């Protein structure tokens, strides 16, 4: 029977000839990801009677959520994790400042085509950009994998999104993803494996494709997949940690849902408070006053995101009384942005540049808004309270729109500055 990506890869890992949606399989993942929550997972692991992890090579542990530590409590949490990785012989440990976990998996060649990646983070779907089956799981389940090396997974129904034509100039994959989430709503891909196809997706650089797989968590997807192509393989050339065999869906596979979008008709989009599926065209919300602009996160903190914002900010200043925070997604992005002169542009414009990590994305530190303030951000979530206080509005947009809004002091299209 022809199979979708998810059906095929789960069959392969479970050593079955084929699988069908709804079936439950037991598999051993190739990579398991945990971040600052490694310490609480360790607690659960010990409650289960765990002493030594099943296989230290499977682990990727990345400190990113509150780094550098904003309080003694956070620092203690980090210390537990450093001791843990040392004791367990976990080599893939990335200490503070290396970058955001999802970005690191890709940069370090740990997210590979045809592999299964499970993470105790809801945006683990991100790694599907490399053609992996990547899904978020709970902490207890993660602790159980640490102990026994296995987990049950339900084979998801698959959704095929085909995007034809080409995105117009100034329109990004962020706008495309927001448009689709606005169209399908937050449960539009509930429990599904979302596959991306079509020439508009093929035309995107990997960093922009990652924004798509990252944001599918906001449509309820279990995982999201982009078929590896020459661009993917070239990127992995000197990076992949081991040999891999890509998995591709069969031509005539059965999908629970097939959607088609025309990239040529997409315009800059904004997710408005307080849900990611409350999406409006930029033109409908222009002029809303903002207090803070935030450029960064696993969704849009890569080099081309910074480049797009720098292009807008070059020779301009952040509006009086407004602030802008820039956080590159990784050390590598930081260095490249430094060399390209983007950081200088940001600083001269009056923005604050901070060290790689999640920053204020989930309200931990490094630029959380005050009560009543309005933020515009390149992140993936704008739920009430997400950035720290329930009494604040968060708008989500592409990097260029965030930069233009910082300059205007209100939500603005870069073209209209």
């Amino acid at each position, binding site marked *: 029977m022809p199979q979708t990506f998810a059906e095929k890869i789960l069959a392969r890992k479970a050593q079955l000839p084929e699988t069908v949606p*709804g*079936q*439950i399989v*037991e598999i051993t993942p190739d990579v398991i990801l945990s971040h600052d929550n490694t310490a609480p997972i360790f607690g*659960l692991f010990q*409650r*289960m*009677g*765990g002493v030594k992890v099943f296989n230290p090579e499977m682990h990727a542990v990345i400190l990113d959520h509150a780094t550098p530590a904003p309080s003694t409590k956070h620092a203690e949490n980090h210390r537990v994790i450093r001791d843990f990785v040392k004791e367990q012989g976990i080599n893939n440990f990335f200490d503070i400042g290396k970058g955001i976990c999802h970005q690191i998996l890709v940069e370090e060649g740990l997210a590979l085509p045809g592999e299964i990646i499970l993470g105790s983070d*809801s945006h683990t779907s991100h790694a599907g950009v490399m053609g992996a089956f990547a899904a*978020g*799981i*709970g902490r*207890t*389940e993660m*602790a*159980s994998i640490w*102990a*026994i090396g296995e987990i*049950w997974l*339900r084979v998801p129904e698959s959704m095929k999104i085909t995007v034809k034509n080409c995105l117009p100039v100034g329109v990004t994959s962020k706008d495309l993803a927001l448009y689709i989430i606005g169209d399908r709503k*937050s*449960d539009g891909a*509930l*429990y599904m494996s979302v596959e991306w196809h079509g020439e508009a997706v093929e035309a995107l650089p990997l960093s922009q494709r990652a924004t798509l797989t990252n944001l599918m968590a906001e449509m*309820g997807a*279990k995982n999201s997949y982009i078929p590896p192509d020459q661009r993917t393989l070239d990127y992995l050339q000197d990076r992949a940690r081991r040999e891999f065999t890509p998995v591709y869906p069969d031509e005539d596979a059965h999908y629970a849902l097939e959607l088609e979008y025309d990239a040529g008709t997409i315009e800059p989009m904004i997710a408005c408070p307080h849900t990611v599926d409350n999406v409006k065209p930029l033109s409908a919300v222009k002029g809303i006053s903002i207090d803070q602009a935030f450029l960064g996160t696993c969704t849009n903190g890569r080099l081309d995101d910074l480049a797009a914002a720098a292009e807008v900010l070059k020779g301009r200043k952040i509006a009086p009384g407004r602030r802008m925070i820039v956080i590159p997604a990784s050390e590598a992005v930081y260095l490249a942005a430094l060399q390209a002169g983007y950081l200088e542009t940001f600083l001269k414009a009056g923005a604050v540049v901070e060290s790689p990590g999640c920053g204020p994305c989930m309200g931990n530190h490094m630029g959380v808004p005050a009560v009543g303030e309005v933020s515009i951000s390149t992140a993936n979530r704008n739920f009430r309270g997400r950035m720290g206080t329930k009494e604040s509005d968060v708008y989500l947009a592409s990097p260029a729109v965030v930069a233009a809004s910082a300059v205007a002091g209100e939500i603005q299209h870069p073209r209209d500055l």
Partner: protein
Amino acid sequence: MGKIRGRVWKYGDDVNTDVIFPGKYTYTVSDPSEMPQHALEDLDPKFAGEVKPQDVIVAGSNWGCGSSREQAVVCLSEAKVGAIIAKSFARIYYRNCLNNALPAIVCPEAVDVIQNGETIEIKLEEGKIISAAGEFSFPPLPAAVMEIFNAGGLIEYTKNRLKVED
């Protein structure tokens, strides 16, 4: 585990974890045995006082959407709810259910006809629901998940497996 027989508590679509277990208790109520007192507090104030072991929740689509808080499952598993039958579940909620040994059954046809307050029977291994309006089938839970059920949840299950492997 095997046969479940209980009264039906029927609810609609998109019931989120905030009304299943209010967020305000997530840091104040940490003892699992106290959680049933607040189960469905903001959805059905009668539920917590009247629910009996083996009662069954029958819900529309997307039951358990919202946050990933596990208390929204524990407050029901601790109340000894027999099963939840829904048109669909939020993904993390579904996993949390099975890992806490609370059967989560997807069966839209059954949801359409089962009435609030009636008594139904569920045969887990066979994948059958028996109600006044007839019998319905669902894919039986696989052996791997039944083992987690029989152990009383994932923590116990993993504990047992580690002991065996020692």
